[in-house]
């Protein structure tokens, strides 16, 4: 693995997250969603992405963060996953960031266990910390 890695970044409230750029299929504005009754509360609905049906996950709920304010605009970060496309609903999109291996640190022990599974670690950037998300874990609701 090369030292340098690129991450697509986004915000959930004040928290700054990144996923490996290769995992990201595309980024979309808020889309019409069809709710899926009886599904996990984390699943917000289904999106028609040019004929592909994508499951939208409320990343705030998934990570146990407080719900966003009513009417606050959403962004879709569509990531490729083994079981079809998954969209992560986030507050806002950041830049693509290049990191080097030295800036990486594993998550602190104090992080709640269920979140430690999804947050692989943090990159210490100049101005802030970027949480590195494991998309596969985020999309795997079974592990909860």
């Amino acid at each position: 693995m090369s030292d340098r890695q690129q991450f697509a970044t986004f915000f959930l409230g004040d928290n700054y997250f990144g996923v490996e750029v290769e995992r990201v299929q595309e980024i979309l504005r808020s889309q019409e969603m069809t709710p899926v009754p009886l599904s996990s509360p984390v699943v917000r609905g289904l999106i028609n992405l040019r004929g592909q049906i994508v499951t939208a996950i409320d990343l705030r709920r998934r990570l146990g963060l407080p719900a966003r304010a009513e009417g606050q605009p959403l962004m879709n970060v569509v990531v490729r996953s083994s079981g079809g496309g998954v969209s992560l609903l986030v507050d806002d999109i950041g830049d693509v960031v290049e990191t080097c291996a030295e800036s990486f640190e594993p998550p602190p022990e104090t992080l709640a266990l269920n979140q430690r599974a999804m947050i692989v670690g943090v990159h210490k950037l100049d101005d802030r910390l970027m949480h590195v998300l494991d998309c596969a874990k985020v999309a795997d609701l079974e592990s909860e």
Partner: protein
Amino acid sequence: MDSADGMDDIVKEFIVESTENLDQLDRDLISLEKNPTSKELLGSIFRAVHTVKGTTGFLGFSKLEQVAHAGESLLSRLREGVLVLSPSITSGLLAMVDAVRTMLAAIEKTGSDGDTDYAPLIQFLTQLQAQEPDGKMRDGLVAPASSFHAVEQEQSQDTIAPGTAEEDRDDQLPLGQILVEGGHVKEEQLASALDQQMQGDPRRVGEILVARGAVHPEEVLEALQAQNDGPTSSLSSNNIRVDVGQLDKLMNLVGELVLARNQILQFSTTQQDSTFLNTTQRLSLITTELQEGVMKTRMQPIENVWGKFPRVVRDLALACGKRVHVEMEGKDTELDKTILEAIKDPLTHLIRNAVDHGIESPSQREAAGKSPEGRLFLRAYHEGGQVNIEISDDGAGIDLSAVKAKAVERGLIPQEQAARMSEREAYQLLFLPGFSTAQKVTNVSGRGVGMDVVKTNIEKIGGMVDLQSAMGSGTTVKIKIPLTLAIIPALIVMCGGERYAIPQVSLLELVRLEGNGARQGIESVHGAPVYRLRGNLLSLVYLNRELHFDSAAAQDSAQQDVVNIAVLQADDCQFGLIVDEVNDTEEIVVKPLGELLKGLSVYTGATIMGDGRVALILDVMGLAQHAGVISEVRQRKLSEDATPAAERARERKTLLLFQSPDDGRMAISLSDVTRLETFSRSSIERTGEQQVVQYRGTILPLVHVSGLLEERRLQPRGVSPTAEDKVQVIVHTRNLRSVGLVVERILDIVEDDLSTRRPASRAGVLGSFVVQGKVTEILDVDGIIRVQDPTFFDPEQLLTGVAS
């Protein structure tokens, strides 16, 4: 060729082609066993093996070549009539086919033909060949014998003298003619060579010519090649091989196109521009045709799966010491490739079951007064947009008491339940996991994984399995499966402000209650809502409650003035699903749900609606289970099943009842009904004598049932007193063509066994029956249509119909 990745296209193509050839070989060999002297079959088998051998030699798979060669030599003796087919020869040849198949698999995986030692097989094949040797033919010039020695000495094939390797065949140009046409020999030379042959020279024409120096050996080889290629190349130029993945992609794109078309159609209703409307109409038509065309490319005859069965049955029957012959009907019934793949294993399992457990040994059969040879009958046919497959044997049937005893022993059901259990219920026990009634476990079947797997696999593709059996006279397994999985007709309903699709296959009928009916029609049995549907209680399920919508809203809908009930069929029970609104039926493209939602059994997938939004497709089975209907209805079924068994055993038919012109009752089989429609009289147009309406982008000819039936009223009425603004039409579709039967009034849908029959008393009627205690005439749909349009069923008419 050292690894699979490095395998070049020629090898890949060779594997694909050879695998197909081998499947054909299996079938041919089994047919040959019944008809051992058929020149045609022998020729086809010989050619197939020869092709395999030739190509393997060329590609350098020497082991494979040796085996194929030994087989070919044996076949050639058969073809010459020196040997006559015996069971041991057939077994030898089948073993050879298996060996070739194994090696092909090895080549596909590793790039080499494996390390298995086939020397015993080759020796066996050679010994078979040596049976009843015929002296006068063994002069060393007979191709197979000499070339066989060549292979034994590990020499390559090109040491075989040209001209000896091949024989002239009936369906090919004679070698001589090819040589003359190629300008290699003169006609006189050929004539004198043929003459020499006539006078007793045992050599082939090519050989004689080479021996005389009239032609080069290479030229003979080339001519032989041309002779072989001739008929095949002309065939293959009409066909191309397409990767299934490519078709799937195409299918997806067409699905998208259909959705885009629907969106445009929806938009077009708000537009006035006639050019735009016309273009939309054309786009719609083309899309429909394109969709049908692409669907067709994925359709394959069921024979592709069935073709393997005679071989399976033969091997199995031999292993069990039984005699079974297979009969097939409807081999060319077409199914989507995905479905075909999915039913392959379940069907094979059922066939194995039938031979292993169903059909008795010859001695037992004779003792029971049956022919010693068992009969396995496979039947496939289309009905109502579905394919039915039946597998029946004339074996011992299923001992229900043994089934029950076993179920009790395994702890699947308590003793007293077993005693109460109806016949039908008991058959369902066979489909429970971990159930096997075989007295002993054989290597064939009865290993515990059985009918439950069959059932699960069939249900996975939206099908149903049913089993009927009669002690002593056999068992029939019926499978109903959809034609295709990708695009299905579905009813769109609304619930909680969202749309849901219900696959049409599960939909029986729609009931709408208004006013008082809505408030009082729904009763409750100890809290469980029910509705009286034609005298029977129908369990009701509120979709909004099942989907846990706001309970206040659910309360509201219970108080509403209008109640929509979709009567659905789940497994063998019916229930009513209460929805907020019923929209139209639509052809929808089924898309799988992501891995995240796989656990939700109430949905089978999702689709994209005309407006681009996603709608969920309800899984009727899953919904019924979720709502707890299935177990509940099962209980009720028990009491219903108290009717005599004989009555239930009879074939039941679902009929659509309507009022006949003379106020009597008429019926047509529901399988003949594509849809029921209501048209306003003003929408009826005329083309010549024919009344037509515009319907779903096509022109639907109308046939007035009343006009074609002999009037039998005492006082013929003039103008119909009920000259309403609307006409009721039964749409009947055959071979992609539809016709609308105009009837007075649709009455009901009933299920009946059509037992009391009287012959027809007038034209256009098949006969009369007592249905629900009333005399009902069954309409002769074909006859009626033929009177109106004698060319309706003509295939040519179909073509022009599509082209126009």
